[in-house]
Every structure is written in C-alpha cells, then in structure tokens.
C-alpha cells in the first residue's frame, strides 16, 4: 500500500512543515496574558523539577530534618511534617513526580486516542463504527472507575496510577480526534489531495494529522492538569504514591488527621496543586489563542 520511498519523503515533508510557523507562534503565545502567565508557571515548575537537588534546602526523605510539626519559619519556609521532614523540599521534589504524571498519563492517552481517532475518522464504514462504539462504551464509565479497575489489575503504585489515568482518558482524546478528523475530511483540500492521487499514509499523516495536532496540543495541555488532579486524587486514596514518596496528593492525604494542629501540611501541597493546574489551564488557553489564525492575521 505504501512504498518505502514515499515514507522517507513523507518524513521530509513533516519535518519541513513546522519551521515557518514557529516564531510567530511563540510571539503570539507570549502576547496573550494567559499564555504568558501559564508559560511562566509551567517554566517554574520544570525548573524546580530539574534543579530540585540544588534548590531544595533539605533531603525530602530525611526524617527529623527539624523538629516535628513545626510551623513555617525561616529555617523551614513551609514548616515540617509529622516525621520532621521539610515540607518545601518535599514540594520541590514533588514537582518531578507531578510532571512525570502529566507527561506520562497524557502521553499514553494522547497517542492512543490520536491513533484511534485518526483511523476511525479516516477509514469510515465498519472500522469506524466498531471503534467508535467501543469508545462510547468506555465513555459510559467515569474515568476514575476505569482507573480504579486498571489499578486493581496492575496493582497499587504511582507508576501504575499514571498508566491507569492514561488509559482512562483514551476515549476522550479518541472522540475529539475523531470529530476533528471528520471536519477536516469534509474540507475541499482533503478532497483535492484525494483527487491528486494521494495514498492512505499521505492523506492521514500529511494532510489530516497536521490539521488535527493544534487542537490536540490545546486539549493535551488542559489534559495535563486533569491528569495531575486525578493522580493526586488516587494518591489521596492511597492507591497512587506510596510512602515516603513526596507526591503532593499523597502529602495532602497524610496531613488529613493533623489538619487542626498543622494546617501548613495541607495548605502548601494544596496550593502547589492548584497553581500547577491553573498554570497548565492558562497555558492551554494561551496556546489555543496563539494557534487561532484569526488572531495572527490582525
């Protein structure tokens, strides 16, 4: 169906495509307030994750780094927990886990959803009907139920939680991709490519994919925040991160019994989650605005 030479030339085609868009995209992203704020928040998060050993004042796992349950002070900016661990260090190291969760969970669901949606939308007929009905069935369960089912099969743990969340949100990405593909397939340029004699691979990867990707970047960015929240939820239930991992959701749940004595143990991880989720949401909005051609032409 597809010759090896055309696969090579396809790769060239794809590689050549993005360069001319880049500069104006970044400029537009920074020009929108939500894009700028989101970008800054996410950049800070990435920096914190990368430089954790340099920034964090203490080892996040070291017990009795200070007195137990100490309120925020100059020594411990966010106080210490019930094992005497430094909360700010744990939060900084927690950024690593949070980013992993976002990237891995969204990576899984985006890739699988994109492929499913592309194949279903492009093929039409029986393939489409069977695939999409399958997606509908999965859709009828809440994501968290599917994630719980996956965890019951794989076993408890943070890595498994990431995979479970990724699997649980595949139907969503498949649905979105499918609908975008249907819209793009109806546009004359697609018919023009068919009329020119283009093969399946060229139609899917050169004509459909680049026009689907912008939408998916936007919802993928928004999806990162959903994944982080879901992972925090699972960890809160004790199904995700296990002690002594400095995962924010898990930090929240372990502070539950001490809420009146040591509210800082709950406030700071909670804030970290909230700000991160907000950051990714703003970034997603910013990207959507920046990718909108109507914005560019002004």
């Amino acid at each position, binding site marked *: 169906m597809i010759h090896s030479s*055309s696969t090579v*030339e396809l790769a060239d085609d794809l590689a050549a495509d993005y360069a001319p868009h880049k500069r104006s995209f970044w400029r537009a992203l920074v020009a929108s307030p939500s894009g700028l704020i989101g970008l800054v928040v996410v950049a800070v998060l990435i920096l914190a994750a990368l430089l954790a050993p340099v920034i964090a004042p203490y080892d996040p796992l070291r017990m009795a780094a200070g007195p137990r349950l100490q309120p925020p002070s100059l020594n411990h900016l966010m106080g210490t927990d019930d094992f005497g661990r430094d909360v700010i260090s744990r939060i900084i190291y927690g950024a690593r886990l949070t980013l992993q969760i976002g990237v891995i969970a969204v990576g899984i669901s985006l890739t699988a959803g994109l492929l499913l949606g592309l194949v279903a939308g492009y093929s039409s007929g029986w393939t489409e009907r069977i695939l999409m009905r399958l997606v509908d069935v999965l859709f009828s369960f809440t994501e968290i139920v599917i994630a719980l089912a996956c965890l019951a099969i794989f076993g408890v743990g943070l890595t498994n939680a990431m995979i479970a969340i990724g699997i649980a949100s595949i139907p969503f990405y498949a649905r979105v991709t499918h609908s975008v593909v249907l819209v793009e397939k109806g546009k*004359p340029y697609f018919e023009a*490519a*068919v*009329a020119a004699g283009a093969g399946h691979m060229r139609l899917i990867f050169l*004509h459909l994919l680049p026009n689907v990707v912008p939408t998916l970047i936007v919802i993928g960015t928004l999806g990162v925040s959903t994944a982080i929240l879901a992972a925090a939820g699972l960890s809160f239930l004790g199904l995700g991160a296990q002690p002594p991992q400095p995962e924010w959701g898990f930090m929240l749940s372990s502070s539950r019994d001490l809420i009146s004595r040591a509210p800082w143990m709950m406030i700071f991880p909670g804030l970290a989650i909230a700000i991160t989720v907000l950051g990714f949401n703003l970034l997603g909005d910013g990207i959507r605005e920046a990718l909108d051609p109507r914005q560019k032409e*002004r």
Partner: protein
Amino acid sequence: MTSDTTEPLLSVKGLTISFGRGRYRNVVVKDLSYDLHPGETLAIVGESGSGKSVSSMALLGLLPPGAANVESGTASFDGQDLLQLSDEELRGIRGDRVTMIFQEPMTSLTPVLRIGQQLTEALIEHKGMSGSEAAARGREMLTLVGLDKVERRMRQFPHELSGGMRQRVMIAMAMASDPAILLADEPTTALDVTVQAQILDLMRDLKTKFGTSIILITHDMGVVAEMADRVVVMRKGVKIEEGPVESIFEVPQHDYTKALLAAVPRLGAHAAAAQPRTVVDDPARPGDRLLHTEGMSKTFRERGLFVAKSGGTAAMQDVGFDLATGETLALVGESGSGKSTTGRAVLRLLDLDEGVIEIGGTDMRKLSGTAVRKARREMQMIFQDPFASLNPRLSAGRLVAEPMVIHGLASGKELQDRTEQLFLRVGLEADHMRRFPHEFSGGQRQRLSIARALSVNPKLIVADEPTSALDVSVQAQVLELMLELQQSLGLAYLFISHDMAVVEEVAHRVAVMRRGRIVEIGPRQAVLNDPHHAYTRALLAAVPVPDPTRTRGTLPVLDIDQLPMGPLAEVAPQHMVAS
C-alpha cells in the same frame, strides 16, 4: 427619479472607517460621500475589499463594536446624524425606517422561530400593532412578495422553505414596516439565476409600490444594470466614480470602472463564434474522444444504524456524455442539478450506483484502489473555493509539487525546477514557492490550484465552478489562463458552472442539467442560440444583462412538474434534448 432638486433622503459625508488601532490601524473606507434621493435605487458596486458592505453596515451601527471605528463623517437622515445616535436610538430606526436584507437567506432567518413570529416581531415592536393586526399585515406582505398558501407559511419554520422563498420572506419582513430606505447587501448572490431574476423583479415591483429608496450593495454589474438609477463605484475604500447608471455603463470616466466593465462576461458576446476565442498562435483543436460516460446514476442514501435506509435522493440519473481532447464541455445548471456530483463521479471521488466511465478506453469503475490512484495522473480537479481547497499547513511550493511527488514523477533538484516552471507558467513568481496559502489573494490561490493540477501533465481537468468565488477582474484573468493552457497543451475541460456568460466564453459544447438529468446537450451555439428545452430557455432568459439600456425579457412561466425529463432525442446533429 434622479433629481438634484429634491432634498436627499440620506446624505453621507466624509465617512471614514478603520479597523484596529495604533500600528494595526487599517483604513477600510476613506472619505466616502454620497446622497440617496427619495424613491431612488443607488447601487454601491465594488470588488472584495472595496469597503462597500462596511460603509453601509456603519449606517445602521452594525459594525463589530471595538474592532471597527467610525473615525469621521456624518450621515444625515430625517434631520438626525445616524452616526451620532446611541444604540438605543438606532434600534428604533433599524427594522422600521431603515431595513436590511442580507446575502444569505439560509442563515439570516432564525431557525427556531416560525415565519409568522419573525415577520410580526418588528411590527409589534416598532409600530405598536396588536398581535392580530401584525399577523394580518404579515399575511398581506407574504402575498405581496408572491408566496402562496400564506396561512401555512406563517406557521412554517425557515428550514421548510427553499432559498428563494426565504429571501422572499426576508423581503416581506424588510418591507412590512414600510421603510424609507431598504439596504440590500448582495440580496441575490446566493440564489440561483432563475430565482435571482424573480427576486429582482419583485424588488423593483415593491419599490414602485411603496416608493422606498434602495441602497443596493453588489459586485454583479448585471444586477446593477437591471436595478440601479445611480451607481457609486468603490475600490479599496475609496469612491472611484459616481453617476447615473447609463453614463457609468456607456461613458465610464475612470480607468478602473472601464476595466471592471470590460471584465464582465456578457451573454451573447460570443454568440457568433463557433469556437472559444483563440489566445495562442497555433491552438490545439478538439481531437479524439478522451472521456466516454453513459448511464451514470447515483442515489445518496441516508445511513441507518447499520444498513442504508431505502429511498434517498437521486443526485444523478442516466447521465452520459463524451469529451474529446482539447475540448471543453460545460455542465450548467442550478443548485441541486447534480453537476458537481457528475464531476466528482468522473474522477471517482464518489462511487456510482451504475454507469460507465471510460477514459482513454479504460473503464474507471473496474479499477482497484491503487490503479485508481495511478489513473488520477491523467485527470485533475480545480475546485470552487481556492481558500479551502489548499491545505493551510503546506507551503505553496509543496502544494504544487505534491501531485508530482505522489506519482513519483520527479525528485530533488528536478522537482524544484519543475515546480518553479509551473509557478511561472500560471503567472506566479518563483519566490512565491515558500509562502503559505493564506498569504495569497483569491486569484493567486486559484492559479496555485491550476499549477497543482497541471503538474502531472493531465489530459483532463474537471473544473468545478473555478471562478465563482473570484472577483470579475480576477475571473477574466483566470479564464484567459485556462483558455491559453487548453489551446497550448490540448487539455480537455469538464467545466462546471452556473454562469451562462462564462460558459459561453469558454465552452465548445454545453450540457444543461436539471434534477440529476441532462435535459439538453449539444454544441455551444446550438444550445445557447437555439435552445430547445423550456428549462434552457428559462435559464438563458434569467441572466441579468450588464447593459442598462436593454431590459431583460419577462421570465417565461415554467410549469416545473411538466418539464420533459425523459430520454434525449436528437433535434439537430449532436444536439440532443430531453423529450
């Protein structure tokens, strides 16, 4: 009606409108002035980007707030300056003293409200009529605009009416409050030519009955010639010329007006010539048969949950024709006639229920998927909308080169060179290759589509309304290019169009389609100069003539259901008519 002694009803002076602010400021209308006298039809004509719509929308405060700024100017009407009125005060005038009809009758009626409700709303609001008074007036108006079964129409929803009927409802709504000014923005552009003729007749009729002044915004010189008393020609936001319609058409002063009029295709201009005009020295003439089709039928069926439902719409029934190399066969017809379906079927972009399509002796319908793709080298397509038919994410160079890449005709340096030659061939520049589609104008984009189609040296090009989305001056250039390419390369064109004047200019033979069937087919002169089928005659009679001194004849009354739609019978050599 034109007289400078009467007090103008509306007087626009020094109107300047811009979009954006600061360094993004873009003046779209510059220092525009005109008067509108009572009972007069003033046509504002211009091509896209001329500011003709924007300047009129501004009068009613209908410009997008924030984006557009009315920078200066006055518009005195009834002793008030329309441009100074508050939103509240404007609302009192809109829909009452000044009303509007829009281009798209499909979208300018609210889909969820009954016709009667939409019709009476403004009357109750502005005239303070009671519900039953307004309903009576509504029924009266629907009768006036020529709708039947008025009682039922009042209770119907917009989707139950055809495009022409909806535009009649729009006109009824606009005229119901007996306005002083009717603003008509491209009122017939979206309509079929026979419906357009009826709507124009209706508007003229109502104008005399009500004494309304009309501001007619249009790009169509034929409509202008038919309707206008006076004409304002605009270009790039500036008034180029103004004058009574006769003098604009007969002694245009400005070069732009002259060029615009020269570019308008006129039905009958090529009536004496048997062949399209020659644009190269040694033109290729129609040769051997290239395409043969017969008995093509296609019914679109709605898909049920698992299997196709029975019934459906017959888009094409028993369509067949031949096409020779170097020849143009024009498929003409109105919307829903099946002409585009036919074009797509020939390229196997959709699968037929039955029929034969032979290209160069090969039966296209028997080819497998891979073979069809190979066969597509021989036949390419040019689409109507050059804005949508080019993938926005590929550069112009890659788009033009794509068919060559697909069919493995060239690569590397050779591909580059051939792409460059194609750009030059269609009148683009070599350094346009790196640009993206949105950086081109409509005409340039259609040149790109043509270059793309030419890249694989096809024998047949299906052109689906290739110039309908273009301004007339651009249309003339694109048609010229198509003629030149045909005559130097011996291309066969299947030219799908609704515009009889364009068809007359380019076609060797003409096939008239109606409701999925060919009702008349033959050499161009035979079909256009001596039409045998009643529907062909009606189509030709409905074409507006871009000449104010000639009035279009009255429309023949067609009994839609009694038109002969049967098998074709020969009335003259090669001239076949449905019996």
